[in-house]
């Protein structure tokens, strides 16, 4: 895991290495400065030769300047290294996700991917910053201080060593107690925020049912629960400081007594007062560095969870890869399914598709109908190789889809997904997804075909109208038509519309279908629809149920042979206005 994350350091290696080096310099200075100040104080006490004071003073100022330089530089490089590291992780994550197949995407939910790219990365960034800045600093400080303490106080410095296990034990105990508590609470905290979000989103419902007080009471108890738990955990953590003080003071008192005894009995030969008080300063530093180490321990353990979740995404191998010598050209728009079986996960019990055999000649129009959950979308998603078959094969232009270069294949197969998304940007920006080099004329042409041009022109900014995130500022039908136009710009050999005109009225739908015929006469068109009117003129209509093609034929054939098809047709014609339209 660490190895994988370390690879994200890359161009910030210099800063990552430089930071601890600079910190070594800073620590060195920090350790020598008290030593010299002690000397300076002694000089002042001992008669005050101004020359010597100035000399010590100059050395000290020089060292302080050096320490300032080291410290500030380390702070700067550390910031660069850690934020750069985070940037690279985010970059790698994004890159990794872009390489995901549909199967990979299904495995992680959208919100979990977002959390991984935001909160988890900042946790790891913080831990990384602590590691390169403090992980060197604290042990170094500890070693320096303890050495100096031994030089100054000899055996007496052992007192500081004795207290270490006690302190370490106490701090680790606190961490052990508090950490699992915090993990539990964060879950509750998330749940609380989720319920706030639910309220903000559903405010109309809350108000319509006059549930304000009900929601207030609900929130009060959730928040109270969070408060109770947080207080408990924080009170444990709050013991850190007093425990630390206890050790420090205990030490001080004992060292005071034994130190005084030693000084007086040896009449200052084995230890003098100046050295003694300097030693106390070092003792303080020893304990401080221990405290810091325990803090790093807590921070790093808390971030391990995040690091794991990041590496999980980084290590996720795309389930679809290009073959070694990919076919780089799609000959035509013919499609054939040969004994296709498919299930979404290898351990899933049910097959989503079973025994699918199908031959579609280039240029044909195919309609697919069936109830929700009959695997209509699954069937068409195999064509641009968004998923791989479990057994059997899917061929496009006579070649197995697994033998194509994926980009080549997908460029020839345009698909308008059922859950379609527009992206924030102008209408023009969105259309260019289909073809980055499309001219204004191209765009207008496909928009006319998709029956989008007319409404685009009613917008004050026309094709430069800004689309909000998720396309929320255009209606469902408008969104669908923009998505169709976007797909048409690709001029594909195969065009798949997965329930893409459900929010468009029948008349417009018919116009779109007519437009497709003239614009792409050779392209194979596969249309999934709920309305029979969308597919009744297709060369072949497939009826699907439970992952199988249960019937196939033209509209007339199905109408004659399939009672369920006939029933649907009659319901739709009875309740919809279509009868009137065509009468």
């Amino acid at each position, binding site marked *: 895991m660490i190895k994988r994350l370390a690879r994200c350091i890359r161009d910030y290696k210099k800063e990552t290495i430089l930071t601890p080096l600079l910190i070594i310099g800073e620590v060195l200075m920090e350790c020598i400065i008290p030593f010299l*100040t002690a000397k300076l*104080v002694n000089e*002042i006490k001992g008669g*005050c030769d101004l020359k010597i004071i100035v000399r010590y*003073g100059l050395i*000290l*100022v020089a060292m*302080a*300047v050096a*320490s*300032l330089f080291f410290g500030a530089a380390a*702070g*700067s490089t*550390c910031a*660069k290294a850690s934020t750069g590291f985070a940037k690279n992780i985010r*970059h790698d994550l994004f890159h990794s996700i*872009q*390489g995901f197949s549909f199967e990979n*995407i299904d495995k992680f939910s959208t919100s979990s991917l*977002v959390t991984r790219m935001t909160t988890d990365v900042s946790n790891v960034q913080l831990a990384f910053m602590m590691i390169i800045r403090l992980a060197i600093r604290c042990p170094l400080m500890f070693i320096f201080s303890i050495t100096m303490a031994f030089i100054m106080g000899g055996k007496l410095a052992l007192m500081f060593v004795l207290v270490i296990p006690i302190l370490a034990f106490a701090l680790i105990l606190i961490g052990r107690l508090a950490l699992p508590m915090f993990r539990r609470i964060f879950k509750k905290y998330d749940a609380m*925020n989720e319920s706030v979000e*639910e309220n*903000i*989103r*559903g405010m*109309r419902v809350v108000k319509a*049912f006059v549930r*304000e007080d009900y*929601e207030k009471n609900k929130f009060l108890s959730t928040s109270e629960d*969070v408060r109770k738990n947080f207080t408990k955990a*924080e009170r444990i953590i709050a*013991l850190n400081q*007093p425990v630390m*003080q206890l050790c420090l003071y205990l030490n*001080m*008192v004992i060292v*005071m007594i034994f*130190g005084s*005894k030693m000084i007086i*009995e040896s009449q200052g030969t084995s230890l003098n007062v100046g050295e*003694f008080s300097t030693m*106390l300063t070092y003792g303080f530093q020893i304990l401080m560095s221990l405290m810091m180490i325990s803090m790093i321990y807590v921070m790093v353990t808390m971030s391990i969870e995040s690091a794991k979740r990041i590496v999980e995404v980084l290590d996720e191998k795309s389930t679809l890869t290009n073959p070694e010598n990919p076919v780089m050209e799609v000959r035509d728009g013919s499609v054939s399914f040969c004994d296709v079986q498919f299930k979404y996960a290898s351990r899933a019990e049910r097959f989503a598709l079973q025994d699918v055999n199908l031959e579609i000649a280039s240029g044909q129009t195919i309609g697919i109908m069936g109830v929700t959950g009959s695997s209509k979308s699954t069937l068409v998603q195999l064509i641009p190789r968004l998923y791989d078959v479990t057994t059997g094969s899917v061929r496009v232009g006579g070649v197995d889809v697994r033998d194509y270069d994926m*980009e080549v294949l997908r*460029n020839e197969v345009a698909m308008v*997904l059922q*859950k379609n998304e527009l992206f924030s940007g102008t209408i023009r920006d969105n259309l260019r*997804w289909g073809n980055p080099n499309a001219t204004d004329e191209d765009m207008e042409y496909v928009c006319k075909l998709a029956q989008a041009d007319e*409404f685009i022109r009613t917008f004050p900014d026309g094709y430069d109208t800004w689309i909000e*995130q998720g396309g929320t500022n255009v*209606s469902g*039908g408008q969104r669908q038509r923009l998505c169709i136009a976007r797909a048409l710009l690709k001029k594909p050999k195969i065009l798949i519309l997965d329930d893409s005109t*459900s929010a468009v*009225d029948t*008349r417009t739908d018919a116009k779109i279908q007519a437009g497709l015929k003239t614009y792409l006469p050779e392209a194979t068109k596969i249309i999934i629809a*709920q309305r029979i009117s969308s597919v009744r003129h297709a060369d072949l209509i497939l009826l699907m149920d439970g992952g199988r093609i249960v019937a196939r034929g033209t509209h007339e054939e199905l109408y004659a042979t399939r009672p369920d098809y006939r029933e*649907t047709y009659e*319901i739709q014609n009875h309740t*919809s*206005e279509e009868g*009137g339209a065509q009468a």
Partner: protein
Amino acid sequence: MSQNAKGPKKAKGTLKLLGRVLRYLFRFYPVMTPLVMLCILFSAVVSAIPAVFMQQVLEEVSLFMETGDWTAAKDVILPKTFLLASFYILSILSNVTYTQMAAVVTQGFLHKLRVKMFTGMEDLPISYFDQRRHGDIMSLYTNDVDALRQLIGNALPTILSAITVSLTVFIVMLYFSVWMTLVVVVGVIGVLVVTKVVGGRSARFFIRQQKSIGKAEGFVQEMMNGQKVIKVFCHEEKSEADYEKVNDELYQDSYQANRFANMLMPILGNIRNILYVFVAFFGGLFLVTNAENASLSGLAFGIDIVVPFLNMTQQFTGNISQVSGQINSIVMAAAGAARIFSLLDEQPETDDGYVKLVNVRKEADGTLVECEEHTGNWAWKHPHSADGTITYEELRGDVRLTDVDFSYVPGKPVLRDITVYAKPGQKVAFVGATGAGKTTITNLINRFYDIEDGKIRYDGININKIKRDDLRRSIGIVLQDTNLFTGTVLENIRYGRLEATDEECYAAARLTGAEDFILRLPDGYATQLTGNGANLSQGQRQLLAISRAAVADPPVLIMDEATSSIDTRTEIIVSRGMDSLMEGRTVFVIAHRLSTVQNADVIMVMDHGQIIERGTHDDLIAQHGVYYQLYTGAFELE
């Protein structure tokens, strides 16, 4: 405006905001807060005392050093050490008390603040939510509350104790020597300048970082949502390139923010070291030159002044830089507090209504008598201030809009001269393009928004006179976007009427046809729903929302019909559910499919905020107007 003119004003704003945070703290914990503060002060002072004793012990040690007589020294040194120890114990005790209490107060403060924010938010008018992005409101509860936690939990105690200690030390320093204090003051001014320059820059970048984080998060969210579209269009490289830009911006801002924050402490620490040398030098200089001392104590310069003074310098400047180190927390907290306060300061929905909805019993002679128990009969209790009488008006569901005008933004009318009569049990349908004002009308009937001009009467009573909650209770609503809540299916149905028994909830689900799929869920009615019912299909969610309205059993119903792509069979089930719910009620339905409005008692065709045609289906077809064109498909509904 120049930078200079802005500076002090901003600082004043920050102080004002922090002052208000403190006022809340005192209001929430009127006893604990001052107690914690006292403990912090006590602990700060007590922690400073041992240093004095330590100095004394050391002096004794140097006195006895020449004699080498430990037994004699012991009698002097040990008591002093024990005194030292007892102060240590006091210091630890006060520390334990205050850190424990601070944990309680901090978490309690956050809890009370959250609840205050939430209760305030629940009472805000719908317009508040319509005008803001949900993510922005949400971040009040996460980021901004967190910034306040930093302030209350860390920054405030640190600042309080540091300021106390430095003030105390400052006075002692003056007691020793004014001249040397002056040297220290000059150094402290240096510290403050550095803090303002470096720390201020850091704070500025932290706020910018906050913005770029939001931006990057929005981008990632959008891309993750559209990931499948990206795949289908082979758009991976382009979206990576776009992300690169966003990511780099975030990096730049967080790099700068962290850089200045990291640099602040080493700079401050070493300025202290340099200052120390200067104080030592001046001390020595004063000693050598026998300069005249000016001090509160009147003592002359001597080693016994210069040496302790050096220690105090360290302590004083150390505390000052501790305060400086908190500048980021303060700036971030002030920004967060400003946003939180603006939520708290929002005006809640007003309610001047005095007509109440009450249970009534129908007497044999037809008069209505108010009663406590649920009778199934409701009436409007209407007190008349003019003559002090009370009249009861039976709740029938008669809604009339007369010449209603409305605009969301003054000067941009959304509705003009809307007149609609809906008699009890009638079905009124609105048909028209997106933005024609259909939903707005329903927003006015249950007073999500108040009309500008005209009249809306419910059973003959002006709706402004009806208590808002009672008005809404009498109107059921099924929205186009179904919002469900975390909880079981049963709880979600019961949301319509909290007192409903399980049996009543089942009955409602049966009525609307939802029971069929509910029983097929893994735990039936007890199935847990999360994330707005993410585990249900659109049609199933819609059925639950209809059942929820059915349990409420209101005389008036508003239905915003769903357009989403549900298959024909599900659609039939949903519309059957809707039909059975609509029976016997006054219904306003916003129709997206003309097929569902054909049997409406009256159809209103809307365009640009006006009703352009009205009548039954047959009337409108005969008129050969817009409706006819829509119906025959010559014209399109969007």
